């Protein structure tokens, strides 16, 4: 927030309640998160079924980056290896970063607007809506692509936004942008859309495997076109969310007090929900329903850097990206040559880690 909050304190947390909390410098935590992301990305590129020499990977990337300027870097990867790097691994890692970052920052934003630590990006019906859209198109769509874009991502994107709009509409009919009402509206909409999705799924058992594969989340078929498809939406949504950190801090004191501080809680909540839902819909469109990232990453970040959203939002972006790349790496490697669905890994790795954090936090109190 300011230099006033950037104070480092040596030593570990003291045990007594209400003790001075050692706050690591924001700069240190941000740098560490950035480094973690870089390491995760490099690991995600290097490790895989086809071994790629790290040095030559770097040279190939340098060649690609400098190619437009007429610089030719020697020693780069050729043939299949180059294709594996540039057409398979790189787009997958980049997409994992984008999806992880989007889900984590949206989760943090949802937790902020609802003042609820259990909120996640799928709370307002985004997941159920996307699931219904994807299931309908997998089961019934006569075409698989619309121009260069797959029909399933489009339907998932539209479905996610549709779910959130239904929740907002129901919420506003039932009592404005008052957060508990909106939360309940979201639960109602999500339950209804999930039921509809189940119905369609049961009537099309031939497509069950494909539907199920989508629902559990995957990054296996990532292409550059996916990255291009979601990047504009993700960029805009994340930029808006990053700007809302201070506003979310104000909202944290409750609607009345935020109002007395000159803020319009209803408008602010709507803006943040729209931006977070756009990010979520984009992520869901290209990766299916990857759970746990949006719920857990913001909490990890809070444990590291405190509760101010000016820190939680940007750090969630970094940590979320790193988390999903690593989860995807584990998904590819652990049963190689077979792949685990990434949604399984995020929960499998995330849940025990989260439990550990809670346990550590409880001991601290």
């Amino acid at each position, binding site marked *: 927030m300011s230099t006033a909050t950037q104070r480092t304190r040596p030593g570990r947390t003291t045990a007594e309640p209400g003790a001075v909390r050692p706050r690591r410098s924001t700069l240190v935590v941000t740098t560490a998160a950035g480094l973690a992301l870089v390491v995760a990305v490099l690991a995600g590129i290097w490790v895989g079924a086809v071994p790629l020499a790290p040095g030559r990977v770097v040279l190939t990337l340098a060649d690609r980056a400098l190619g437009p300027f007429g610089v030719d870097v020697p020693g780069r990867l050729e043939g299949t290896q180059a294709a594996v790097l540039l057409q398979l691994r790189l787009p997958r890692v980049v997409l994992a970063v984008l999806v992880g970052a989007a889900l984590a920052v949206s989760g943090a934003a949802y937790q902020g607007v609802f*003042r609820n630590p259990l909120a996640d990006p799928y709370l307002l019906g985004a997941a159920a809506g996307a699931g219904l859209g994807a299931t309908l198109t997998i089961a019934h769509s006569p075409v698989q692509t619309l121009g260069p874009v797959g029909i399933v991502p489009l339907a998932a994107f539209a479905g996610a936004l549709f779910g959130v709009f239904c929740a907002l509409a129901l919420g506003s009919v039932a009592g404005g942008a008052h957060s508990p009402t909106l939360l309940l509206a979201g639960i109602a909409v999500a339950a209804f859309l999930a039921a509809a999705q189940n119905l369609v799924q049961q009537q099309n058992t031939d497509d069950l495997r494909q539907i199920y594969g989508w629902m559990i989340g995957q990054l296996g078929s990532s292409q550059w076109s996916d990255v291009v498809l979601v990047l504009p939406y993700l960029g805009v949504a994340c930029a808006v969310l990053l700007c809302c950190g201070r*506003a979310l*801090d104000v909202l944290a*004191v409750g609607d009345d007090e935020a109002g*007395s501080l000159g803020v319009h809680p209803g408008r602010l909540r709507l803006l943040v929900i729209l931006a977070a839902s756009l990010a979520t819909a984009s992520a869901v469109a290209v990766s299916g329903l990857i759970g746990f990232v949006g719920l857990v990453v913001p909490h990890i970040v809070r444990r590291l850097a405190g509760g*101010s959203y000016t820190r939680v939002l940007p750090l969630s972006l970094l940590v979320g990206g790193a988390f999903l790349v690593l989860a995807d790496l584990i998904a590819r490697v652990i049963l190689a040559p077979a792949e685990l669905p990434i949604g399984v890994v995020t929960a499998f790795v995330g849940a025990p880690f989260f439990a550990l954090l809670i346990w550590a936090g409880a001991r601290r109190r």
Partner: protein
Amino acid sequence: MTAPQPHVRGARVEVVGLSAAYGRTQVLDSVRFTVEPGGWLAVIGPNGSGKSTLLRSVLGLQRSEGQVRIDGVPTTGMPRRDRARLLAYAPQLPVLPEGISTREYVTLGRTPHRPLLAAPRRHDREVVADVLRRLDLEPLADRLVVTLSGGEQQRAVLARALAQRPRVLFLDEPTAALDLGHAQQVLDLLDRLRRQDGLTVVSTLHDLTLAGQYADRLTLLAAGRVAAEGTPAEVLTPASLAEHYGARAQVVTGPDGLAVLPVRSGGAKTDRVTRA
């Protein structure tokens, strides 16, 4: 005093014909009161008489009809930010965010004075530092605000409101969660601050003795209407306490003003004591 801002002067608050309703239930009915600049008005009244709603209505946090004028300027149509630079509010049950230090919490009070996206500037930090110092919160500045004790939290909320540099301070039951000693500390502090800054204070207070000792005027609300108003001696009479609170009480005058003493019913006990 190295206050970085010139002396803040309290504003005159006029409330005329203020009515509010929850659904079909009328909560406030044509309430009117005036507080002179630098004055302290305590709104008293039995539970459910509309005290909190009155405060929230005056602050524009609650749909209401009627007029509120601050130094003669109506607040209807005033942008929220402008209003927030004039009026600060400490609710009865403040929400203290998790994971936020006391200093960060108090800094939230600077929100109406800077763009919502902008970081606090040097001036904001100076105001916050000044408020923390005046409220003896400096040693607690880097503690998480949720870990403070009840009295410390009340001071932190007060600090946040004062960091707004308001001209009128609205406090809903500032002593509700505090024992007598801490309640007196907070009220003494408030009295000192308002005299130093010339702030106008409007507070609800359920403790009638404290209300009588600290406020210079009282407004007694009963069922959403002003039942009595005036100096403590005018408002706090056994008759009005019996009528509006259904209470049996004596009002005694001590060296520091009035005190309301509850009286036990029936006189049975007294009888037995006198007989024995």
